């Protein structure tokens, strides 16, 4: 059997499309087998909700009557510095940017990091105003040299998220072999294998359901923080060449996505600022990727369960920061991770996650309802992402 995107969209229009989430489909395939399931099911939805540090917002500010050139000057929003090295009125606010010398952040080690770029983005999405403080050097066409005012979405021509690296396809499981507690972007890690933190939705994770990037590519429409967004490029650090299991899934962080979406349309429920004690500020975003079941191979990919997905256990005490020591302590399945304990070096280690599986289920379920209600249509990628062994 084979199915095209146009045929699926026709069925969405007609209200006869059959959609399951990447969690539900596992049971469907177990019951019906790949052949029958791929004949009957048109789309499988995935979801993830997790901190993704490589996120930020492009903002274009409305000029006042007397214009100012931001480019080459500076701009802060609620004291958090934005990048102003663009044209006259464009700035970029990164999720991890921090206000200088702010007691909410650097109140001794390990800092609490209570406020940063992600919090500004979150407040804007909640409809709040933030304090713009900006300066330019003044030109004949842009004479104004300072601007200080409260601004919200209504003062911006555009505000969109442009996230250079989201949706990591698989990720490390972080542990700490050293003798002291450490604070990392994978959370607080207790000494001597006290705990293990992972960060992936596993069987619901977008790129783990299209492991070879057969349907996802540049131009793919996604659910992005409550609105529609798009894949614009492979994400930075996209690395399709990591070792893979026989089922096609990578055994470590591999593919990534660069995403874009209109911040003004996003739902603050799906866009949350996070503070990692001792590490910094980040932004949690929600992404749902619909996967068209073009043929039996795609059905086989989406039916891969947590038991058949593996992640590497990495020591963040010594190996990750210094590159010394054993690169990989173990390989564990997501089923093991989600059971609450994994075994590393003969020790039972309790697990916790930063990626919310509860929210991933909600995203995938919501995207499913959008498609069955005829409110979300599938796209044909303009260009595939670089796959394994690409030149």
């Amino acid at each position: 059997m084979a199915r095209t995107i146009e045929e699926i969209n026709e069925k969405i229009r007609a209200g006869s499309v059959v959609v399951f989430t990447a969690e539900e489909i596992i049971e469907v395939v177990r019951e019906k087998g790949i052949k029958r399931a791929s004949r009957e099911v048109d789309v499988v939805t995935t979801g993830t909700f997790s901190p993704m540090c490589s996120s930020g917002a492009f903002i274009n500010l409305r000029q006042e009557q007397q214009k100012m050139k931001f480019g080459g000057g500076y701009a802060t929003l609620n004291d958090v510095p934005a990048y102003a090295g663009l044209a006259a009125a464009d700035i970029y606010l990164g999720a991890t940017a921090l206000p200088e010398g702010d007691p909410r952040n650097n109140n001794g080690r390990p800092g609490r990091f209570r406020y940063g770029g992600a919090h500004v983005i979150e407040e804007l999405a909640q409809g709040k105003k933030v304090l713009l403080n900006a300066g330019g050097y003044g030109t004949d066409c842009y004479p104004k040299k300072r601007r200080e005012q409260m601004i919200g979405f209504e003062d911006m021509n555009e505000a969109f998220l442009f996230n250079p690296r989201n949706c990591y396809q698989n990720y490390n499981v972080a542990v700490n072999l050293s003798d002291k507690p450490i604070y990392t972007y994978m959370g607080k890690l207790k000494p001597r294998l006290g705990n293990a933190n992972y960060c992936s939705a596993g069987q619901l994770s977008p790129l783990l359901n299209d492991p070879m990037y057969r349907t996802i590519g540049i131009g793919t429409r996604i659910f992005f923080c409550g609105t529609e967004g798009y894949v614009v490029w492979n994400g930075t650090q996209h690395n399709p060449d990591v070792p893979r299991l026989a089922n096609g899934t990578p055994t470590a962080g591999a593919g990534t996505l660069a995403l874009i979406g209109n911040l003004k349309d996003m739902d603050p429920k799906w866009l949350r600022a996070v503070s990692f004690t001792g590490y910094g500020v980040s932004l949690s975003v929600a992404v749902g990727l619909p996967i068209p079941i073009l043929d039996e191979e795609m059905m086989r990919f989406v039916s891969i369960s947590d038991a058949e997905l593996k992640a590497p256990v990495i020591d963040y005490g010594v190996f990750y920061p210094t590159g010394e020591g054993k690169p990989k302590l173990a390989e564990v399945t997501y089923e093991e991770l989600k059971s609450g304990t994994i075994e590393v070096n003969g020790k039972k280690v309790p697990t916790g996650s930063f990626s919310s599986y509860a929210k991933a289920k909600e995203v995938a379920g919501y995207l499913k309802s959008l498609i069955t209600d005829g409110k979300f249509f599938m796209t044909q990628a303009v260009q595939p992402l670089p796959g394994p062994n690409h030149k």
Partner: protein
Amino acid sequence: MKKKKVVLTFPPSSVEDPIIYHLISDHGLKVNILRAAIDPGKLGRMVVELTGEESRLSGGTAYLERQGIGIEPLAGEIRHLEDQCTSCTACVPVCPTGALDVNRETWMVSYDADRCVVCLSCVDVCPYRAIVSHF
């Protein structure tokens, strides 16, 4: 036998009195100190679990009140803000008592005040500030 978890607030004047000693020896209570923040000359706070017969518990409580010590039930010392919580589970492995736990069917994280010993381990671990401590 009854068990009661309470938060005691000591006025600066009584911080140096052997209150806990009196609770044990004069009132026959078992006292398990879960958490204490007591500096001489400052307001002290202590989370304790008191175990004993009903009558002894009320006797001990009356004694504490006579000493001007504030007694409040434990509820509210640690609050889990459900609408802020994303059920990520980051806090689950750091909670020593299972007060924070995840239902592995629904993947929802819940907080059980009865099992909390106010160790505060979870507070800095939650990236969403969904756990607040008033201790």
